[in-house]
């Protein structure tokens, strides 16, 4: 019979080695990139709750707008793209964007984003002077004036902690919410194309300028709208969710 202590050491060693081997296998298993199971990984992508008490009206208005876009706005927009050369379209887009400087400036100041407000002013001055009344966006070539996210009054209201309120679909203008409706009023007061000036045929000139602004801005908007609509199973819900999520992201940045 083998001595007890020798037997004991041998068994112990064998067990330790076996344990180490099992441990090695565990290390192998743990090393493989297999994810840890999670309690409910389907519950974390749910969209936030939405206030939509006017959903029946909103859906009806959404359909009306959709019809208008397809049968009124889209043909005009396509005609504009076919007849106006691309450089001129780009120049007009730059010009009207430059004109909206007061909206961006006040929107920045109301959120205490003074650095952004200063750079907005720099962009406006550079583009209005060197950029020939804003037709050429020369500020893009100046590193300190590189493009930044734009601000508006609705975003300022959101940054003050005011919630979006009920979702709304406005005639022609499209998706909005109560906060942004108020913000749009503020934006309109700050947009020079809406300002009243005392000159000959003031009303007609203002209408003409606003019409050009509306038409020149539609191609890009319609392209985005069409792309969104093409991929949506329920376009109303898709647009509602996208609008609200996008505005919240704009307020945060």
């Amino acid at each position: 019979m083998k001595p007890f202590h020798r037997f004991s050491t041998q068994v112990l060693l064998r067990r330790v080695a076996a344990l180490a081997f099992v441990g090695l296998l565990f290390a192998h298993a743990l090393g493989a990139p297999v994810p840890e199971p999670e309690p409910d990984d389907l519950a974390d992508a749910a969209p936030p709750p939405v206030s939509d008490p006017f959903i029946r009206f909103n859906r009806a208005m959404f359909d009306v707008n959709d019809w208008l876009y397809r049968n009124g706005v889209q043909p005009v927009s396509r005609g504009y793209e076919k007849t106006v050369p691309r450089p001129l379209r780009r120049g007009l887009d730059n010009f009207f964007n430059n004109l909206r400087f007061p909206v961006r400036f006040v929107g920045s100041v109301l959120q205490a984003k003074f650095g952004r407000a200063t750079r907005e002013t720099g962009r406006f001055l550079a583009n209005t002077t060197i950029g020939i009344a804003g037709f050429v966006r020369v500020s893009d070539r100046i590193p300190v004036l590189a493009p930044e996210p734009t601000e508006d009054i609705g975003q300022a209201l959101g940054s003050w902690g005011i919630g979006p309120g009920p979702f709304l679909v406005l005639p022609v203008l499209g998706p909005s919410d109560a906060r942004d409706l108020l913000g749009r009023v503020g934006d309109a007061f700050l947009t020079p194309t809406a300002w009243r000036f005392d000159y000959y045929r003031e009303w007609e000139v203002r209408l003409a300028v606003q019409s050009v602004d509306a038409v020149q801005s539609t191609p890009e908007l319609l392209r985005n709208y069409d792309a969104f609509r093409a991929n949506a199973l329920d376009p109303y819900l898709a647009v509602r969710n996208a609008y609200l999520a996008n505005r919240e992201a704009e307020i945060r940045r």
Partner: protein
Amino acid sequence: MTRRDPRSSEHLDVFIPMNALSPSRYWLVLPAIFSAFALGAVAAPTTPEPADLLRQAVGEVLAISNAPGATPASVRAGVRPLLETYFDPLLMTRRSIGPGWREFTVSQQQRAVTLFTELVLQSYADKFTPGLHPVVVYRATVELAPNRQEVPMSMTTDDGQIVGVAFRFERTAAGWRIYDIVVEGVSLVANYRSQFDSIFQTGGADGVLSALESKIEENRSKP
């Protein structure tokens, strides 16, 4: 795409026939086993990180877009397999459908993955056009959960527009894969979730499948 790292744990497989060792040799072998154990723990999980994968994917897409003689059709055709490589269709589909997914049968789940993948490819492959030169700035990776990360970036397009995009990755058995894209705060998964929820509540799994089939057919029939 799956890459095998030379240091991966597959190279640490050790089989020691215990009865081939005399007891005195155990002492010699044990340190080797523990060393291997330690080495395995350190060297095992070295798949490419989400930020590296994204840089690689963006580089490949831009190479296709800026290839000499690239056309919209050639870019679409080239980008499609890339999307299939970097995305995880199953993850994306089940997260988009949400809790209703559990009530799908296995065959309904498989069908949903096929259809939803097709819809997403239809949607995204068209976004890539020849001659893309965006200025891409990558931000710091954000840990969303133990096995989920988000890589945010901003793209400045040729006409000066800044687009904020975030890619959400999940660690799978095959490595990190994209399961969601968030463009300007709009999550693809959350957006589809809001639509699927509504359809599922009224029509169940069949309603979801039928809506997907109709949408794909509608897109195909467009010029």
